[in-house]
């Protein structure tokens, strides 16, 4: 294993190297991000003005569904798995992932799974149109025939996630360099350990949910049909028992990234390291017992409403601990504002905003008004885009020199940040107003009084979309013609094992584990 990468396409098809597999994950997720982004542009173009302009309502429904599914399962989740593949072994001093061949299997399932999902767009009956939450009976009794492809696609994508997570857990628990105790792990590694645990716990739940759908649709069972003694609301319980931990699966690795970037550019160690670890664990635990806050309008008994309301609010406590620690890390640091830091600070501010709207939604009596309105769309884009996607962008700028040995263009990076930041806020702040004014989500048309803010939102969305093309340009031009940046420690204030390696990181690293003091 002393030698370098294989030649030609085989290097990628038959890879066992964590860096190569990480690279494939990152590029694949970015491709999915652009595809899901294209669907979003279609949605916002249609909603630019009231009335039906460009597409048919049936197709609009397919677009919202595919946008959500592809962004969550195809873009955000694999992007962080790619990051874990690259960084976890480097940060803990491991020679590779614990189970390198399974690692490649986890990756290569994804292109097949998403090709299957995307191909439904061209099939008779069209793509899934029941929303990314695929509530029964919309997704069973009233679903297009292609739902079966969707179900089997989810099965294999879920298998990929489970194998990927098991690999990450085994790597972190078993491959740490001597002296790298649990409480010395970089926070990105900690957050991924907990995320992987969440994934192993809830992906099987998702598999169970789609399996019951499959049975109801094709084999005459009545899990989600009251006529046979089942209950459509049961579907929502199962889905959200998966779904709420899922949103933390999306955000926890992002928290990890932020916890790496902020200390570097504050030139101070992270404030409250151990409280970060405990807060992350607390969030993970709580995420299992709050799911029905998505279901306040389903007619739960009042005791249920109250319980889920208070339990949800509890999550704000550990989340608050994290935000406090990030701010305190910056406090009196000698700050500089390179592109990764700009993204990190934006995450702290915008994610906090999204957390607050989450708290508003957690208030059961208020949520009866907000539920299924554009306010919810605003809320979750603040946490998923400004939380997860922004920190992913920051992570790429932060570690790109380590990956490629080249430096991105700082001016271009900052410009991309500002266009993304401004575009994002123009796109999503108005959605809160629209929702509070009563505009429902998932409709292809709207009443005239919603026209102005929708137009503003669409303009912001196009701007944010353009920023992503610029991001692609920045990454490619860095790889092709970036200034060489070969020092080990790219950033003056950076700490951690990955910064003891040459840049670009050699094909095999830490074949003999380093000693951590």
């Amino acid at each position, binding site marked *: *294993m002393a030698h370098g990468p*294989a030649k030609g396409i*085989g290097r990628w*098809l*038959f890879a*066992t190297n964590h860096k190569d597999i990480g690279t494939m994950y990152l590029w694949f997720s970015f491709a999915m991000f652009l595809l899901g982004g294209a669907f979003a542009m279609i949605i916002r173009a249609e909603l630019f003005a009231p009335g039906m302009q460009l597409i048919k309502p049936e197709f609009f429904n397919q677009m919202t569904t595919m946008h959500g599914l592809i962004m969550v399962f195809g873009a955000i989740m694999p992007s962080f798995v790619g990051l874990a593949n690259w960084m976890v072994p480097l940060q803990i001093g491991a*020679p590779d992932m*614990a189970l390198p*061949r399974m*690692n*490649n*299997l986890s*990756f*290569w*399932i994804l292109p*097949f*799974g998403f090709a*299957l999902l995307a191909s439904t767009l061209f099939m008779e009956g069209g793509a899934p149109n029941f929303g990314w939450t695929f509530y029964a009976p919309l997704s069973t009794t009233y679903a297009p025939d*292609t739902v079966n*492809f969707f179900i*089997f*696609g989810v099965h294999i994508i879920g298998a990929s996630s489970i194998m990927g997570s*098991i690999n990450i*857990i*085994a*790597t972190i628990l*078993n*491959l*740490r*360099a*001597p*002296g*790298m*105790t649990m409480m010395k792990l970089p926070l990105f590694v900690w957050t991924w350990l907990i995320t992987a645990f969440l994934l*192993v716990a809830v992906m*099987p*739940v998702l598999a*169970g*949910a789609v399996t*019951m759908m499959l*049975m109801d649709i094709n084999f*005459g*069972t*009545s*899990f989600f*049909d*009251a*006529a*046979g*003694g*089942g*209950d459509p609301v*049961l579907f929502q*319980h*199962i889905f959200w*028992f998966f779904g709420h931990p899922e949103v933390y699966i999306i955000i926890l690795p992002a928290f990890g990234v932020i916890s790496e970037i902020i200390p570097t550019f504050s030139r101070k160690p992270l404030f409250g390291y151990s409280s970060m670890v405990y807060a992350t664990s607390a969030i993970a635990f709580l995420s299992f017992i709050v799911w029905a806050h998505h279901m306040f309008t389903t*007619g739960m008994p009042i005791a249920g409403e109250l319980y889920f309301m208070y339990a949800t609010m509890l999550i704000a406590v550990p989340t608050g601990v994290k935000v406090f620690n990030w701010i305190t890390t910056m406090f009196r640091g000698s700050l500089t504002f390179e592109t990764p830091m700009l993204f990190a600070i934006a995450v702290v501010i915008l994610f906090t905003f999204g957390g607050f709207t989450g708290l508003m939604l957690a208030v059961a009596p208020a949520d009866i008004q907000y539920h299924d309105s554009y306010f919810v769309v605003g809320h979750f884009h603040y946490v998923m885009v400004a939380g997860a996607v922004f920190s992913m962008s920051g992570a790429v700028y932060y570690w790109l020199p380590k990956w490629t040995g080249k430096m991105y263009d700082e001016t271009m990076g900052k410009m991309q940040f500002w266009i993304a930041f401004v575009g994002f806020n123009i796109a999503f702040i108005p959605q809160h107003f629209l929702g509070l004014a009563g505009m429902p989500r998932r409709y292809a048309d709207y009443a005239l009084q919603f026209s102005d803010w929708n137009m503003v939102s669409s303009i912001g969305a196009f701007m944010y979309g353009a920023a992503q093309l610029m991001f692609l340009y920045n990454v490619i031009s860095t790889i092709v013609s970036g200034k060489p940046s070969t020092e080990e420690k790219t950033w003056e204030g950076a700490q951690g094992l990955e910064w003891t390696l040459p840049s670009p990181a050699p094909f*095999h690293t830490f074949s*003999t*584990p380093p000693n951590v003091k």
Partner: protein
Amino acid sequence: MSTESNYYVPEESRLPVLGALALGLMALGAGLLLNDGASGILWVGTALLVAVMYIWFRTVIRENIAGMNSDQLKRSYVWGMSWFIFSEVMFFAVFFGTLFYVRTLALPWLGGEGDRSDMIHLVWPEFTAQWPLMETPSQAAGSNEFIGPDHHMSFPGWDKMFHWLPLWNTIILLTSSVTCHFAHHAMKHDDRKKFNIWLGVTVALGIIFLFLQYEEYHEAYTEMGLTLESGIYGSTFFMLTGFHGFHVTMGTFMLLIQWIRGLKGHFSSDDQFGFEASSWYWHFVDVVWAGLFLFVYVLA
């Protein structure tokens, strides 16, 4: 934490990408089978998967025999198997959760209990909640969309107890866990002969269980009017016992492979992970059955 200085990182391999292709073909093929009745692609995918898994496990076993697996790598396999079983636990948790939800919340509500009884009552006025659910809401409303079963599988009373298959199945499966443990114990003392015997008995018990399970299903479909389509009782009954039966099949097969490996002399007291992993899986399947016996058969 690692102590060894060389962790075995395998050369590039064709197996993973072929495995992914197989899974992709199976997903596509299963969809095509349901939508168009065409089964070709599903078979190709399944055959490819079987081939890949066969070669993959053979490779891993050969690597182990060649001494490439350090203790540290073996620990990775231990973690891998443990978390895989945990994911299976969560998979069964969904179906148990469904059963509990239906029995304690959904059906009583349909039967008119709870805050919204006035409204529910308008929809299904004649419906009474009971478990096992013999008459579905649609039947109560005079439609035959879902027809409840004629008979159920629950405890038939003490006098008929010994004609009750689930009891025998429980005895068989619990015994097999014990014999499996004996096999483990034997190998720990490098007693290969005893190992082969006890493991052979375990596999045989697994096969008997599957046979009885088949009998039960046959009876359900032909004599008891109990099918997947007989309302939520049939749905949960077959989903839980069916997935369990599938896992017993897998577990029996895994143990059978280990038995053959035992005959070939692959194991010793300090090198028997293939067997140990399969035995954990077997104990897990056994625990699930205990839950099934209690909640699906006895407390009904």
